[in-house]
Each structure stands twice: as structure tokens, then as C-alpha cells.
């Protein structure tokens, strides 16, 4: 038998195909992170959100007019399968809490925090750090407003925690603009890819 060294692109393809990524919250961040990871070739996603698609979501989230009223989990799954029918999706129509987080996301290679309220972000970050301390977590904070897209950055906050955003601009009092929200989502998705490929530097 002849051993064949894997090409770099084949190594990347296989690593992403074999990966399982959890996304907490399927709004402007989570729904966009999901399609980016599917297009990048991530094989399996665990998606959790309790909400339904609202008309006001269409200005920045990956849903369509005819999906208003559908659970976000269901609508997103259908959109992602139109990109790649073989993507494995584990759907949970629940509000993620400290209590159910370990059960939902155990077995994920990386978890993405993409919820809205500041208190919920703190709870998801702490819950993930406490219950799944060895699982890398990519969180976001400071994605609102029409400030420079260049102030959206990825920082390493803790040993297993990364943070994308400008860290400062809250959604209360600032508009959520599709382009800036998508920039933050792209930072999150790309950090996930880098972590999966073994490079933890932002």
C-alpha cells in the first residue's frame, strides 16, 4: 500500500467535514454564522433558539419573507439544506439556559454564543465555561451601530474564550445594521474555522 500525504486543502476539507459546531441563538449573528460554516464545509451543526421568524428580522438575519412565523430552527435548517443537503443538523427549539446548555452542546468541537440580551450573554458564557470548560467558545459583543467595520475585531478573552465585536456598542440605542452585524458574524465563523484547524490565535 502506498501512503499518500494529504494536500493542505484536503486536510482542511476533512477536518471541517468531521466537525460539530454548536450555535446558541439564531438571530443576526447565529443565522449568518450558520450559513458561513455550512459553506465552509462544517459537517454538523447543533442549532438552538426558542423564537420564530419575525418581519423585523429580515433586515439582517438569514431568513425570507415566506418564513415569517416559522420557528427559526426549522426555517434555518431548510435554508441551510438548500446550500448543502447532506449537512447534519441537530435542532433545539428552546431558550438556552445554564441548566440545559451542557446537555445540548456536549460533544460540540466549538460553541458559538449568539444571543441578544447582555444578561443572557453573560449566562451563556459563564454556563459554557463552567459546564464545558474544555470546549472553545466564540462569543460576540458590540455589533450594533454604523461605526467603522474596522473596529470589529476578534480578541482572546480567556484560555478557551474568544470575543468578536467592538466590545462597546450596545443594541439598545443603536441600530443593528446588516453589514456590521454580518462583519461580526464573519469574525465568529472564521474564528471557529481557525480553532477547528488548530490555530487558536485571533
Amino acid at each position: 500500500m502506498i501512503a499518500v500525504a494529504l494536500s493542505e486543502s484536503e486536510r482542511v476539507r476533512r477536518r471541517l467535514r468531521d466537525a460539530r459546531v454548536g450555535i446558541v441563538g439564531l438571530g443576526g449573528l447565529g443565522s449568518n454564522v450558520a450559513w458561513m460554516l455550512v459553506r465552509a464545509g462544517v459537517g454538523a451543526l447543533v442549532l438552538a433558539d426558542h423564537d420564530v421568524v419575525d418581519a423585523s428580522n429580515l433586515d439582517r438575519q438569514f431568513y425570507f419573507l415566506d418564513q415569517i412565523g416559522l420557528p427559526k430552527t426549522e426555517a434555518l435548517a431548510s435554508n441551510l439544506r438548500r446550500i448543502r443537503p447532506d449537512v447534519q443538523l441537530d435542532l433545539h427549539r428552546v431558550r438556552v439556559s445554564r441548566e440545559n446548555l451542557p446537555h445540548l452542546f456536549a460533544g460540540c468541537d466549538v460553541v458559538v454564543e449568539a444571543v441578544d440580551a447582555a444578561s443572557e450573554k453573560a449566562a451563556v458564557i459563564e454556563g459554557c465555561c463552567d459546564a464545558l470548560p474544555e470546549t472553545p467558545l466564540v462569543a460576540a459583543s458590540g455589533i450594533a451601530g454604523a461605526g467603522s467595520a474596522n473596529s470589529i475585531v476578534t480578541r482572546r478573552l480567556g484560555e478557551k474564550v474568544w470575543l468578536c465585536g467592538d466590545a462597546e456598542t450596545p443594541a439598545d440605542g443603536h441600530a443593528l445594521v446588516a453589514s456590521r452585524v454580518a462583519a461580526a458574524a464573519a469574525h465568529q465563523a472564521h474564528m471557529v474555522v481557525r480553532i477547528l484547524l488548530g490555530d487558536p490565535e485571533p
Partner: protein
Amino acid sequence: MRVELALFASLRRYLPEGETGHERTIDLPDGTTVGQVIAMLGLPDEPRVVFVNGRHAPDDHVLRDGDRLAVFPPVAGG
């Protein structure tokens, strides 16, 4: 004991006087907890995440000499 303190984003203004940047070295009595430092700094009662040496730590965590205490306040938007 001496502890490295890092306050991020809007919490930066609660740092003790000193040079610019978001980090300071502070002197604390032995046995000081995370919660006591937060009270001493007068941090607002808003959502925050605390890390000691890169790992999440609760308010009753007892600090040790050389620890790095970092406090980050998430803001809304998802």
C-alpha cells in the same frame, strides 16, 4: 499579595489611577475574593463575566498572589 487587574470596554473607567491602558497591578490583603475586588472598585450592577487566569471564576473565588483577574461586560446585540 499582588494581582494583575484587567477591566475591559466600559469598565475601564473604574480602574485605579495610573498609566493608560486597561490593566493595573494592585495590592490586596491575602484571602481577598473576586467579589470583594468588584465591590472595592465600585463596578456597576450590570452583566459581567469574570476570568481568573483565563478561566471563569465566581464571586467567592479566593485570589492568590500573581493571579490575573479580568472582568468583561457583554453588551446587547445578537
